[in-house]
Structure formats: C-alpha cells, structure tokens
C-alpha cells in the first residue's frame, strides 16, 4: 500500500466546504458554511468560543454527518468516498487524545495501524515523524509523562503518520504556555513549508495569525468573512476588524 493514493484531481483544493449546515435539535450550529483551503496553504478558522469551530471540525471529519452541502478532501467527497477522504486528513482534536497508559511509540504504532500501516514501514515512518516533531528522545516514555506541549507535538506527529494532504488542528495551542504555543505553531508552519501539507488551524487567538494567512471568520455558525488576514484587517488590527464584524464578540 502506498501511504498516499493518487490524487483524483490535483487542481482541487485540499479542502472544499460548500453550503454545509448542522443542527442539534432545533439549534442550528452551522449555517450554510462555505470556504476552501488551497493546497499547501495555512488557513485559520477564526471564531470566538461557541462560534461552531469544533462542530465544523466534527462535520469535516465525519464524526457528525452533515445532511446539507458538500465536503471534499483533496477532491474526494466525504459522504460518498468517506474512506478516501479521511485517509487524506490528519486530525488533532481540541481535547488531547493520547492513550496515557501507553508509551509514545505504542501510541504512534496504534495510530499507524488504524491507517493500515504496519511492520517495517510503520517503524520507519514513526522514526521520521518523531524526528519531525522533535520527540525522538521521548519515544519510550509513557504519554502521561510528557508535558502538555510535548503531548501536542506528539498528536501532530500522530496526525502526520499516514502522510495526509490536509492537517486539521482544532485549537491545538489552547491550554499551552506561551513558549509551548510558539513551538507548536512554528512546528506546523515549518511542516507547511517543508512537507507542503495544507492546514486548517482553528483558533480564537489573533496572535496566532500572520498577515499573509488565509482567514475564515466564523461567528454563530456562519462565515462572516474570509480572505487574507491583512485584507480583512484593512487599516485596523485583526482584532478590531473582528470585533467590528461580530458586533463585539470576544
């Protein structure tokens, strides 16, 4: 098995979301959400707490099923070709999800298996990924013994094991101290530069966004604006522009 299958259409964006909605009972958490993440780009999904970022991540990763709209990962329709679409995504969820009883190597081995990678190929890829996220020295440590920042890096490494084309990170820097946050962000930006992985980075922190980043501004389940951060901000700071657009949400 090759870790990444041939792309059906290399011209398609890494992620395409069109007209997606989702509701919990009567509460509509997502309303007609549309955006795209171009290949090799870093896109920030910016929104206050409760804006619908995590729900959107759950819909994109098919934890929730969206009955309206279209989601494509690297040209694969999530509903009709869910296996192909999911194989192209690496996901880091908001809540940490390492098995704390197992060592880092065991965690990575398990995750590789969940993507059909085993044996020598898995071992080689695990070493590669450990070097990428700077955790070679911690491979035999139990996940519970890793610091918050190291656990996050481990989760990013885990998400990269199957060489995804699209990396989805839901508030990956949340709960980390300033230094660990900067390290995680630098790691992800470095991966984009080196590996060409497209990234959707959900956050509510404006200081994680660079002027050239693509921003999708989500508010109360709706995309209010999208474009380059510098363009959205105009003469103001991004924070001021965000507050003006959302009527003061924080």
């Amino acid at each position, binding site marked *: 098995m090759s870790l990444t299958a041939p792309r059906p259409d290399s011209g398609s964006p890494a992620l395409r979301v069109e007209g997606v909605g989702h509701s919990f*009972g009567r509460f509509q958490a997502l309303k007609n959400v549309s955006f795209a993440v171009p290949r090799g780009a870093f896109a920030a999904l910016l929104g206050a707490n409760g804006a619908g970022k995590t729900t959107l991540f*759950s819909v994109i*990763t098919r*934890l*929730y099923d969206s009955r309206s709209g279209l989601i494509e990962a690297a040209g694969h329709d999530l509903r009709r070709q869910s296996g192909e679409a999911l194989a192209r995504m690496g996901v880091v969820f908001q*809540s940490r999800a390492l098995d704390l009883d*197992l060592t880092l190597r065991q965690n990575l081995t398990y995750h590789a*298996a969940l993507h059909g*990678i085993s*044996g020598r190929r898995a071992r080689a890829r695990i070493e590669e990924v450990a070097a990428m996220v700077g955790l070679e020295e911690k491979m035999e440590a139990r996940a519970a013994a890793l610091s918050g920042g190291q656990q996050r890096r481990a989760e990013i490494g885990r998400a990269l094991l199957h060489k995804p084309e699209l990396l989805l990170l839901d508030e990956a820097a949340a709960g980390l101290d300033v230094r660990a946050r900067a390290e995680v962000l630098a790691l992800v930006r470095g991966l984009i530069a080196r590996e060409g992985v497209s990234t959707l980075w959900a956050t509510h922190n404006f200081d994680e966004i660079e002027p050239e980043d693509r921003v999708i501004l989500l508010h109360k389940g709706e995309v209010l604006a999208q474009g380059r951060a510098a363009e959205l901000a105009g003469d103001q700071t991004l924070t001021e522009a965000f507050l003006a657009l959302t009527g003061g949400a924080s």
Partner: protein
Amino acid sequence: MRPGWFAAFRGILWREGLRFLRQKGRFLAALVRPLVWLFIFAAGFRSVLGLSIIPPYQTYVLYDTYVAPGLCAMILLFSGMQSSLSMVYDRETGAMRTLLVSPYPRWFLLGSKLAASVMVSCLQVYAFLFIAWLWRVEPPLWGYVAVLPALILSGLMLGALGLFISSTIRQLENFAGVMNFVIFPMFFASSALYPLWRIRESSPLLHLICQWNPFTHAVELIRFALYCRFDLKSFLAVAGCAMAFFALTVVMYDPARGLWRKRGA
C-alpha cells in the same frame, strides 16, 4: 477496496491486549468475582441445592460443577460491560475520535474492537477454568477445546450488547444504571445459578423471563460445549442476538443515524 484492513484489525487487538496487560487490577478483578462465587457461594449452596440429572450432565453433579459454566458466562458479561465502559471513557477523553476518523468503515472498527474485547475475556475465562479445575471442577479434556467457539460467540453477543449500551450512555456516571438494570437482572434471571426447572417450580413468570433472557442461552451454550455437546437452540439464540445487538450498535454509531447523529464523539 482499501488495503491494510488486517493491519488495522491487528492494531486494535494489539492495543486492547496491551491495555489489558498494563491494567493488572482489571484481570484480578475479573477473576476474583467468579472465584468468590465458586469458593463461597457454591460451597454454601452445595448442601442445600439438590440437582437432578439434567443434560448435558450424565450423572449427578455437585453444585460447583453446575455453576462453573454460568460463572464463565459471568466473566464474559462483565467483560462486555467493561468494554462498554471503556468506550464511554474513550468518548469522554476524546480517544474515541481517533478511532472513528480512521478511513475504515465504522462497522469494521467496532467489530475489531469487539473482537479485541472477546480475545481478552476468553483469556480470563481460561484462567478461571484452570483455577476451577484445581477446585475439582473437571469437565472432559476436550471440553476445554470445544468450549472456545461457544465462549467466542457468547462473548461477541455480550460484547455487542455492551457496545450498544455504550452508544446510549451520555456520561460515565450513568454507568451505575447498567449494573442495576442490565448486569444483575441478566445474571440472576438466568440458568447461571440454578437450573430452569427449579425456577419453574417457584415462579412460572420468572421461568418465562429466564427462557427469553439471551444470557441463559449463552450459559447453556457454554455448559453443553464444555461437555463436548452442541445445543442448537442456544446456538441460534446467541448467534441471532449477537447479530441483532451488533447491527443496532452499528446504527447507533453511524454518523448519519442513531443517537450519534445528535451527539457525536
């Protein structure tokens, strides 16, 4: 078809085995429970509960011998519920999401998880049978081989029930209800501790409930298999319930259907 299915299956089995080895308390707890019943409860009842010759036994048996297959099924029952508990825990900690974003279909992932839990519980049953043998509960030697398919099938049924229950439970705290409303009624309203004819004598209604209890059929399937005999009725009941429970689980964990649609991981 996506390659690597076997690698994914083996990975899920490996992780469950690893967790089991790391959680030695879980193994001991699973073993101590039936042993307490065998050493204390059965010893006490041996003198008061008379058993006539009933299939698959060809002679009078001591109560310890009668109760042993029921205790094997008890291990499978608790193990099935334990895996249900760990599914709820995984959902609360977020580990479940990691499993469910794998590119393989959910029925396959859930089936692999189920197989992994059955593998672990079968090891527990054999450990129990070994100790029971030292206690002079001695089925025929071939019975230890013949019982394996019965253990696997019963384990699949009870594990699938556990998975189904896990899909309906919102929080770990709600799990106490499973003990009261599922485990205890299933265990006590069955042929695990007393033969059905005894129950019929005291309460025809309870006898009827026991007959419809899938756990009774798991116990009887194991009991007959342990004595190298095949009970078709129990086999059909256990196989049918296993398929039904698993189908319900798959529906409940389907992102487009079931409670999962409303709640997610």
